[in-house]
């Protein structure tokens, strides 16, 4: 890979300053960025590691819900969120593999917004709020298509706040090689309704399956989705599955997530 300057600030302010330099890029665990740089598909002049910033780490239950620092690793979320939001902890505990979970972070995952990543589903499915150094962004506004988000130049995610639902579950069907989601569904039942977020399936990245939300909000049972159909239009077609296959998975996994929700 091309060489670069490496900096590891210890405060958000220093990180923002470092990232304002020409060609600077944030590194938050690097489990996706490092392989990309090896392939020379990314070549930052400066890499700003965000994992040394104490104020961006940790899992904390508060009045608004469960707050997770952006530089918190998947492994830490899997462990520390378990008591507060088991479905989200389980999601984090199923990302990649243990070694990847010890380095990869929630902020890194959300900033990248890989169309087959797990966290976008948990975040959108929970109706979470993405907190940056500048503002708070509702999940519904944050995800703007494959690898595209509402983040602006120089803006970094500092944390995410998750409202905790009454019941939730995440059911992932692995792409057999990468172990990313071939398709995965996050279902969350709140007092005021149900949210269903799907990752891995759509060419537009994570999305909400609103028909299922409506049906499940009326009756939170697997049978509620039985009569629904998912259109393969706009679904991803690749080596591992056709659009029609992914459309089928959306429905099957939603049903299974409802059954698994607790």
């Amino acid at each position: 890979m091309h060489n670069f300057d490496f900096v590891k600030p210890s405060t958000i302010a220093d990180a923002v300053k470092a990232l304002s330099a020409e060609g600077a890029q944030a590194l938050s665990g690097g489990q996706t960025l490092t392989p990309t740089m090896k392939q020379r598909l990314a070549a930052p002049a400066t890499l700003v590691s965000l994992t040394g910033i104490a104020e961006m780490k940790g899992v904390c239950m508060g009045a608004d819900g469960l707050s997770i620092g952006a530089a918190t690793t998947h492994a830490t979320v899997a462990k520390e969120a378990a008591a507060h939001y088991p479905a989200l902890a389980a999601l984090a505990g199923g990302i990649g593999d243990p070694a990847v979970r010890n380095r990869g972070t929630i902020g890194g995952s959300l900033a990248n917004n890989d169309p087959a990543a797990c966290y976008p589903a948990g975040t959108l499915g929970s109706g979470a709020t993405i907190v940056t150094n500048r503002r708070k962004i509702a999940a519904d506004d944050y995800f703007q298509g494959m690898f595209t988000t509402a983040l602006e130049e120089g803006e970094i995610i500092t944390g995410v706040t998750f409202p905790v639902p009454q019941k939730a579950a995440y059911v992932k069907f692995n792409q057999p090689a990468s172990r990313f989601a071939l398709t995965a569904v996050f279902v969350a039942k709140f007092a005021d309704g149900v949210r269903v977020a799907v990752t891995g399936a759509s060419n537009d990245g994570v999305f909400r399956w609103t028909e299922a939300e409506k049906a499940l909000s009326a009756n939170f049972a697997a049978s509620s989705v039985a009569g629904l159909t998912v259109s393969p239009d706009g679904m991803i077609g690749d080596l591992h599955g056709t659009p029609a296959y992914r459309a089928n998975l959306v429905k099957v996994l939603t049903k299974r997530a409802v059954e698994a929700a607790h």
Partner: protein
Amino acid sequence: MPKDHGIGASSKRREDVRFLSGRGYYTDDSALAGQTYAVMVRSNVAHGRIKSINTANAAKMPGVLAIFTGEDFKDVGGNPAGWLINSRDGTPMREPKRPVLAHGKVRHVGDAYAAVIAETYNQAKDAAQQLADDSEIEELPAIVDMKKAVADASNRVHDEIPDNLCFDWGWIEDNRAAVNAAFEKAPHITTLELVNNRLVPNAMEPRSSIGEYYPGTGDYKLTTTSQNPHLTRLLVGAFVLGIPENKLTVVAPDVGGGFGSKIYHYGEEAVVLAAAKKLARPVRWTAERTESFLSDAHGRDHVTRIELASTKDGEILAIRTETLANVGAYLSNFSTATPTFLHGTLMAGPYKVPHVYVNVKTVFTNTAPVDAYRGAGRPEATFSLERIIDKMCRELNLDPFEVRRKNLIQPDQFPYTTPVGLVYDTGNYQATLDKLIDLADVAGFDKRAAASKAKGKLRGMGLSTWIEACGIAPSNLVGVLGSRVGLYDAATVRVNATGTISVMTGAHSHGQGHETVFAQVVAEKLGIAESQIEIVHGDTSKIPFGMGSYGSRSLAVCGSAMSKAVDKIIAKGKKIAAHMLEASENDIVFADGKFSVAGTDKAKTFGEIAFSAYVPHNYPLETLEPGLEETAFYDPANFTYPAGAYLCEVEVDPETGKVDIASFTCADDFGNVMNPMIVEGQVHGGVGQGIGQALLENTTYDENGQLLTASYMDYAMPRADDVPFYTVDHSCITPCTHNPLGVKGCGEAGAIGSPPAVVNAVIDALHRGGMTHVKHIDMPVSPSRVWQAING
């Protein structure tokens, strides 16, 4: 009580201590003074004409020491094919030159057309990028699909080969009419078209080579990831670069798996040697994983139409196949033997089949070369055969166990001559089938199926009864059939003065545990401790000669050479003992490490004899040379024929199409077993790879010849949670009749027998679930394919 040492003991592997402590020594682990780094410049188009390569900018970049292109090697030899195949009409196969670096044309994505040598890896990488940017390659239409390649004479992988056909082979051509006649009057014909999916071997250690040159003596050294260093020395030395064998040492140190892909000589080995000479500095090259995907020899890739003629009650009358076999862009060293003599000769399987005819057309395409991968031709034959027998059983509503039992060669029929040119020396296929039925608890299947159903899953079981021919032999026969090498092997047993032993073997261990097992055999034969014996392999300067390890030949061929050398040691020891004990040589018996005079208590230990050989004070010097070292070459009289029966049970999730392996059971006959632990490990590994082929692994080129599965992000390797604990058994033993240890090969068995068992199980599950419209699903039987088949 199981044995605790020698033949038959599960001796722990001595090599493990270094591997487990991080002290293995693989090619890329070396650090040499003055070393430089090579990076290959590889084509990013599948087919193209090289218009120009401008090296000027790259040459000026920091650290760059040398640049090579195809032009630099245009006058040296090509990397040859090791086996000449003649077409049905008697014409020899087409053999395009395989250059060190592509010259004139690039023929697959990843085809190296230049190499950059620099002081550091990153400098070489930077300059390689520059060189790629400064190269003009006119892209030509890619030839990817084999049927189109043969049909379209205008677009050619090699300009001189009009129909992209290497050869059109018939086996046995003279039998063709009789086979067709048998089909004419057959009561039932079953037909199946299937794909044997292209696989990437994926040894976990990427290929790596280091060239060194000593200007003072003119000697070269190549350290490389090879399964057979002597063959590499012959190819890169004598055939390609013209370096005499006595000026080139090839060392293959610890090698991290091969599975066939490291049998062959690759162009990078010639590049690092030529560059080392030019710079008089060590030159090292190590593949990145994606380079491995693009440039290692791939495996399988057959498209086959198989027909089976039978009676209505399942007696097999004749088999006929037509196969298109992909060789990729160039002929890798054994690429022509794999789809022919390693495939066609197995098409009778373990069955009494009166008539068999095999036709193979081997096709050039703009893809990576295809060659032998674990099993090599025999998995392809076994898959075709076991799938079509299963299909016949469904069409005729017959029991797959009974149909196989009816057709298996009977134990009293050995030696058995097949209609495809082999003579099976021994076997008992009923015994392994019976063992399997018992071990796999076939009787309890319905109960397990009911439990699966309660979970919403469909359970099925699939059977495969397989045979292979391994330890390829004998040299005079393979020579007649077109082999350009001999397939004997050699060993030297050096008894040192203190009684310790160094065994130099032509086998190469890259995971098989030879250092342990070969020591067990020698220890048993000499009645001494395993710890006194050192096994030396992988270095042409130390070993007399060797053809390396592949094709499940190590113990059957190399081990036999070693055994013969030990016999010579014993014979000489008897002469020494006779002198020392003042007895006739004929009265000396050797047992338990002692030479004794029969019927007396007069004896000399092995150590005493060894010492006397090197301190020959009381020694028959007038008739016997001092020293105790013997070399033997062994050329096998026949292949060995391991065989067995495998049963796979699967659970299919009908909503997602996902297949889980519920259980996998193997009953094998490997002849005599030297180390049960290692044999079982070989079967586990082979079955793991077979499950990978059946369910997960696919090598996909798009229509432009771009490899879509060029990393572990898209090429699905079996992981720990994709497979179950396997049940394996090797207690059914019919010892090989023609080698001294009575052993058969076990390395490839698992990969040969398992894929059809898995696919048969999936089809069975779907049929039991009422989805009888599904006749076949091509491998890998991925969730989306199963779902498609169910809903298609």
